[in-house]
């Protein structure tokens, strides 16, 4: 089975159908070279298949992995970064190795085929006629199409595949294996084919998981293959363009014999028109349109056309035009807006497994307690790794198709009956366009309008341009006018100023004159005033004097009158005061009379004194007598009170000394009264009046004593 990558814009990929879809036809595996299925071949074929599948898978993966450059790049480059050199090797072996060996080997299958064909009466296309034998590029996937190893190998094998017809090529390629198969079939649906198929199946199975290491042989020679990888593809780079040229030549050579041989094959039955030309356009049309359904037909129709000029007039018709099984899967999304991804289920975010639930801070805490600890995890990982390694080893040990013989190349060939369009992955091509770097907007070209109008010439003579008088007129106007105006203004100003000043001066003059006048008047006034003052003052004084004088006069008169009576009164009062006395009289009064009085007094006093002395003598005597009497006669009851009384009483007036003695002897108390009486009597001369009351009292006393 051959897995082809689509060529051309359609990027149709065709793959063998699923197991489910697969038509269970016991088709023998066919070595790409068309060799009869041999025990070796199945393996190889299977290997090739494997390889092919693997290559396809790898191609796919690589294309996906490698990224953009890979799909665009020519097939050979795409294979370089492939994951495993073994795979590459396998691929290379399938493809690249096939390239140099293709030349040698191509001849063989071609020859073989040719031989086969020859056996059928087809003309043998010499290998030498192959373009790549001539040195042209035979790289299968060299052209810009996305060609896998299968394609490359196929192309290498079948150089007659028309290059420009991308559709045609795959179809043709398809055709070839089919034809090969058919051929095989035609040869005989013998065991090998059948064996091939079963072998294919397990191979297919194996290929589901592409072998990591590829064939052991690949590993062994990986170095060589890798090294060799670059080489062969370099060579093919020489003439990629020659491919298209080369290729178209290929199919006709191959196909017509196949076609012719496969008449009884139902699949490869096609309605072939007689003319080659007819075929070509239809093929082309079909390729242009890119319809899968027509492809087969187109190719089919074309093939015989192509083949006819080379091979003769063989035509091939189909009962039913071979066509690819329509892919059940949608290859292109219905709308651009719908992204071409895995089917997106618009589900509830709550139930989206991609959303982390739970703590975000606890994510780092390592393995949960319920789960095994890191050691366990590590062990598990190791176990996984070991399992993987084991698997790989098993893969390696798995019997694979042996490496191709020197000079040969393994190619993956599709041996399935049906071709199915692979549509699990939408082929995407990145196209880019680069605009030039920003350029500055170029400057707008000058717009020079076309010249219109009439050309007129004139000649200026001397003195025509400039007329002094005319030119100078405005200047003069300004000059003179301005001058006059300015001077007028200035004169006016000056005049005004001067007038002002003049008026001011005149006024000042006037003012000063007036001021002088005023001053004079003022002065005059002042003088007047002073004069007036003086006069007034004078007058006042005069008046004052006058008044004074009058007052003086009046006062004098009054005083005179007042003092007129003064003198006589004075004399009178003096006289009354005794100031005017008679001196003799005064002398008498003053001198004589006092002396007289004194003399009188003295005399009187003598008498007094005498009496007093007498009294005292009496008293003493009396006292003594009394005391003597008391001593002698105590109880003399009576003293001579009557003496006393009688004495005084009897004689009142004439008091003599006797009486005195009596009284003094009679009465001790009597002396006192005696005395008194004496006194009284003494003073009788003088104060008779006084004696009488005294006497009276004395009498009373005497009475009392008694």
């Amino acid at each position, binding site marked *: 089975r051959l897995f082809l990558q689509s060529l051309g814009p359609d990027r149709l990929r065709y793959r063998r159908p699923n197991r489910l879809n697969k038509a269970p036809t016991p088709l023998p595996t066919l070595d790409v070279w068309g060799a009869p299925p041999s025990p070796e071949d199945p393996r190889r074929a299977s290997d090739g298949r494997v390889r092919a599948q693997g290559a396809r898978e790898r191609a796919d993966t690589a294309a996906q992995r490698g990224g953009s450059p890979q799909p665009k790049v020519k097939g050979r480059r795409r294979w370089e970064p492939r994951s495993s050199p073994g795979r590459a090797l396998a691929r290379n072996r399938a493809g690249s190795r096939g390239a140099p060996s293709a030349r040698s080997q191509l001849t063989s299958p071609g020859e073989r085929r040719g031989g086969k064909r020859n056996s059928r009466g087809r003309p043998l296309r010499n290998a030498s006629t192959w373009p790549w034998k001539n040195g042209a590029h035979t790289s299968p996937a060299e052209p810009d199409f996305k060609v896998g190893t299968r394609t490359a190998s196929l192309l290498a094998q079948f150089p007659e595949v028309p290059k420009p017809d991308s559709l045609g090529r795959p179809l043709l390629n398809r055709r070839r294996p089919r034809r090969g198969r058919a051929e095989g079939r035609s040869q005989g649906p013998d065991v090998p084919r059948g064996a091939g198929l079963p072998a294919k199946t397990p191979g297919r199975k194996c290929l589901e998981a592409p072998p990591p290491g590829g064939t052991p042989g690949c590993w062994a020679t990986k170095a060589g293959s890798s090294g060799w990888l670059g080489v062969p593809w370099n060579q093919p780079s020489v003439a990629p363009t020659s491919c298209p040229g080369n290729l178209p030549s290929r199919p006709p050579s191959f196909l017509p014999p196949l076609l012719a041989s496969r008449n009884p094959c139902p699949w490869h039955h096609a309605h072939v028109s007689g003319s080659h030309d007819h075929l070509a356009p239809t093929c082309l049309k079909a390729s242009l349109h890119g319809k899968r359904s027509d492809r087969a037909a187109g190719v089919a129709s074309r093939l015989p056309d192509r083949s006819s000029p080379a091979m003769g007039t063989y035509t091939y018709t189909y009962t039913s035009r071979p066509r690819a099984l329509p892919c059940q899967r949608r290859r292109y999304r219905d709308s651009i807006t719908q992204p071409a991804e895995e089917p997106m289920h618009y589900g509830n975010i709550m139930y989206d497994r991609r959303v982390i639930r739970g703590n975000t801070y606890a994510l780092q805490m390592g393995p949960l307690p319920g789960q095994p600890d890191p050691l366990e995890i590590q062990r598990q990982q190791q176990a996984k790794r070991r399992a993987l390694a084991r698997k790989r080893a098993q893969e390696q040990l798995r019997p694979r198709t042996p490496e191709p013989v020197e000079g040969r190349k393994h190619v993956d060939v599709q041996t399935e009956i049906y071709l199915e369009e692979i549509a699990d992955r939408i082929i995407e091509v990145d196209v880019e366009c680069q605009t030039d770097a920003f350029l500055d907007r170029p400057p707008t070209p000058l717009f020079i309008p076309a010249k219109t109008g009439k050309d007129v010439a004139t000649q200026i003579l*001397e003195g025509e*341009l*400039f007329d*002094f008088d005319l*030119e*100078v007129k*405005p*200047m003069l106007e300004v*000059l*003179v006018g*301005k*001058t*006059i105006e*300015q*001077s*007028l203004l*200035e*004169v006016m100003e*000056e*005049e005004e100023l*001067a007038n002002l*000043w*003049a*008026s*001011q*001066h*005149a*006024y*000042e*003059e006037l003012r*000063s*004159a007036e001021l002088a006048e005023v001053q004079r008047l003022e002065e005059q006034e002042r003088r007047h005033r002073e004069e007036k003052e003086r006069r007034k003052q004078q007058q006042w004084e005069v008046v004052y004097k006058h008044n004074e004088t009058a007052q003086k006069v009046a006062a004098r008169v009054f005083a005179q009158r007042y003092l007129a009576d003064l003198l006589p009164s004075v004399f009178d009062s003096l006289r009354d005061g005794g100031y005017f006395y008679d001196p003799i009289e005064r002398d008498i009064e003053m001198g004589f009379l006092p002396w007289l009085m004194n003399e009188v007094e003295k005399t009187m006093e003598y008498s007094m004194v005498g009496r007093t002395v007498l009294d005292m003598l009496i008293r003493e005597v009396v006292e003594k007598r009394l005391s003597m009497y008391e001593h002698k006669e105590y109880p003399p009851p009576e003293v001579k009170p009557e003496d006393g009384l009688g004495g005084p009483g009897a004689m009142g007036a004439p008091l003599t000394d006797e009486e005195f003695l009596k009284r003094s002897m009679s009465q001790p108390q009597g002396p006192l009264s005696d005395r008194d009486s004496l006194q009284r009597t003494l003073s009788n001369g003088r104060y008779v009046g006084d004696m009488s009351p005294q006497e009276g009292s004395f009498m009373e006393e005497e009475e009392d004593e008694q």
Partner: protein
Amino acid sequence: MPLPDTMFCAQQIHIPPELPDILKQFTKAAIRTQPADVLQWSAGYFSALSRGDPLPVKDRIEMPVATQKTDTGLTQGLLKVLHKQCSHKRYVELADLEEKWKNLCLPVENFRALLQLDPCKDKIEWIKFLALGCSMLGGSLNSSMKHLCEILTADPEGGPARIPFETFSYVYRYLSKLDSDILQGDTETYLATLKDTLESRKNGMIGLADFFILKRKV
């Protein structure tokens, strides 16, 4: 400078920088002086200017009173101009004076008439001429003196026009001498009285107020 042969635009015309100033001064003088014959006067002006003499320009603008009624165009201003021109020297040449007279666009007859009052040969004392002019201005002696005072005074216009008493007396005598009506004795007494009034003042200047009493408007 002479015009270049090829002049193309007005900007090429060159004006001397002093010209505007000269023009202005001339114009102002003309406006102030108001000469009857501008040309004549301008000739006198520029000739005096070129010589460096005092210019025949009135200081104050004075409307010309030269009408038919008054024969003379002589005004105080003109006399002043003349005085300005001639006062620097005592004696003035008659010819020169006549020239100046003419420049002021004054009729020459008046000049002659003036001179006839006090005939002289070639030159005349300027003061006398001035006095004669003043007498021509005013009718009376007093007014002539007034004019004289105003002309001769250094005081600002309108102020007390004071002149030295000597000048005054000199002129007064001269004029009175010329006038036959006035007696000499009167002149002297008048002058003496005037002098007395001036005794108080130290400067010896006599002003208008002393002899000329303005009629005050009541």
